[in-house]
């Protein structure tokens, strides 16, 4: 079934690109549009994680450093849309970005749109997941005032292969729409270096806006998700086990011959206790909910959005994030300010692991192995269990109706995931400039 569907998608792709490039009059029926985001940025301090007590630490932001770089968020896309008949069209979007894929173009979207009535629209194929207010145009910098929406709320850019149905209508002074969708996905995410598989994904989105410029959005989404992170491969975990055993033996300061004798049994016990049921490789249900409210009046704009995710995964448990942004337009310039925050709560089992007592010198290899396994597991959980705030001030200047220049200054602050934690705490400043164009 899946293979058949993929073949169908491939054929669809060939159709749209074939029609687009055909040297016949058909080419005139293809609507081409594109966008380009050239973004350069520099961090005040190189990101640094230092576990030495009292050491200065600096949070990272994507892969920016204190050398000016352009690859982290520079991207572009080309979209082709061809109309097959008055009710049916095919849309394909090629997208390339520097971060993670070194500008290798990929077919991001590929779907058929069918409009049976003036109020109803079906889309079938590879479409964007509607997690966020900006999901449909997340990569199109020209469409919003920031250089990019806050990473705390918008950590992923995801697609699903499936079907969605939208019903839209208007009242005298307002308009509204409801979108329902179902599908699945299997994608590699550079940002978390993981292959993520989602099945049985279903979602519903409600949008409404009135003539006074107030827009409201609400979303509910559920999926069965499995993750295969690069850092959680068997080889990586084995390396971590060996490293943890070496650190423990070093701290115990045992005679070399005893340490050498104990080491194999300690490694075996740690591996046995570590297990793999916590890595997220097994499919677990995740639920998402989102709310957004935006108001524009005259020169002013204010907007807030929050999203929550809940599951029972050891690594990713409950996460909430939100932002509040406001802006004022002065001639061609839009000055804006944004506060965003993200808070991921540790799983109860991870908390128990963290609270596990350090084994005494007389402990058996099995007891020591259980302790080391708990620390390795919870160490990974702490990586995702972060609390962070971003504050951004910026300006967007519209050079023309197709080009905007932007300058954003963002302060990134990361807090301890738990009271006793001293690692991963600190702040950093990110300065970015961008040109966004559409054509």
């Amino acid at each position, binding site marked *: 079934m899946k293979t058949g569907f993929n073949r169908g998608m491939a054929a669809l792709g060939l159709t749209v690109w074939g029609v687009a490039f055909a040297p016949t009059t058909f080419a005139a029926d293809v*609507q081409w*549009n594109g*966008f380009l985001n050239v973004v350069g940025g520099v961090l005040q301090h190189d990101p640094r994680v230092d576990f030495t007590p009292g050491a200065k630490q600096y949070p990272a932001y994507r892969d920016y450093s204190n050398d000016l770089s352009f690859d982290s968020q520079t991207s572009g*896309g080309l*979209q082709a*849309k061809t*109309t097959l008949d008055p009710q049916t*069209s095919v*849309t394909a*979007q090629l997208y390339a970005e520097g971060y993670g894929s070194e500008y290798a173009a990929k077919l991001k*979207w590929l*779907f058929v*749109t069918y409009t049976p009535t*003036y*109020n109803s*629209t079906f*889309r079938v194929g590879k*479409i*964007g997941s509607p997690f966020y207010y900006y999901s*449909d*145009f997340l*990569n*199109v910098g*020209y*469409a*919003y005032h920031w250089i990019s929406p806050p990473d705390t709320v918008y950590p992923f850019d995801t697609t699903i292969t499936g079907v969605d149905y*939208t019903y*839209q209508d*208007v009242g*005298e*002074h307002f*308009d509204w729409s409801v979108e329902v969708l179902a599908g699945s996905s299997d994608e590699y995410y550079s940002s978390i270096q993981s292959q993520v598989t989602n099945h049985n994904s279903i979602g519903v989105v409600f949008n409404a*806006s009135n*003539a006074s*410029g107030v827009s409201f959005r609400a979303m509910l989404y559920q999926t069965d998700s499995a993750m295969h992170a690069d850092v959680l491969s068997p080889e990586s975990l084995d390396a971590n086990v060996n490293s943890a055993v070496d650190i423990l033996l070093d701290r115990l300061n045992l005679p070399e011959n005893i340490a050498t004798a104990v080491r194999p049994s300690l490694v075996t016990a740690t591996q046995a206790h570590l297990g793999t049921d916590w890595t997220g490789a097994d499919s677990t249900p995740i639920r998402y909910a989102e709310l957004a409210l935006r108001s*524009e009046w005259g020169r002013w704009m204010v907007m807030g959005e929050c999203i929550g995710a809940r599951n029972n995964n050891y690594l990713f448990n409950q996460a909430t994030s939100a932002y509040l942004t406001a802006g004022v*337009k002065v001639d*061609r310039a839009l000055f804006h300010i944004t506060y965003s925050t993200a808070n991921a709560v540790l799983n109860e089992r991870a908390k128990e692991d963290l609270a596990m007592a350090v084994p005494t010198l007389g402990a058996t290899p099995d007891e020591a192995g259980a302790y080391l396994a708990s620390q390795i597991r919870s160490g990974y959980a702490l990586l995702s269990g972060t609390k962070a705030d971003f504050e951004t001030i910026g300006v967007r200047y*519209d050079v023309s*109706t*197709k080009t*905007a220049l932007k300058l954003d200054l963002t302060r990134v602050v990361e807090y301890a995931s738990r009271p006793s934690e001293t690692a991963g705490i600190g702040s950093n400043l990110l300065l970015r400039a961008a040109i966004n164009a*559409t054509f």
Partner: protein
Amino acid sequence: MKQIIRLAGSLGLSLFCLTAQAGSVVVVANPAAGITMLTRDQVSQIFLAKARVYPNGKPVAPINQLDEGDIRRRFETSVLGKDSTQVRAYWTRLLFSGRTSLPKMVEDDKKVIDVVASDPTAIGYIDSDSLTRDVVVVFREP
């Protein structure tokens, strides 16, 4: 003497009204659409792709004018209540969502009238100075 003053006064008022009305933005439709008047909100809903049918249920397709045109800027500011960059950003969102296509674009008022007069679904905006009897005014900029 008073009559002359009154006459001059009313003439001045008429001239003022003519001056005020000349060059205003009007939204025009095909007579066959059966629409005689739209509210500002209804015009906005049609030109922002939120409504695909007239209030009477007949299909509607907006016709836009070129980006650089003065009439387009005036229409967006006075009728849609947005400046040209706000409208462009709005359409950019719709366009790259793949949910709709850009409205058909023509270069001047005459072309708008030609298209609207020949297509019962078409609706466009022009300067009132360009009006002909081929189309009906369904909204006039106050």
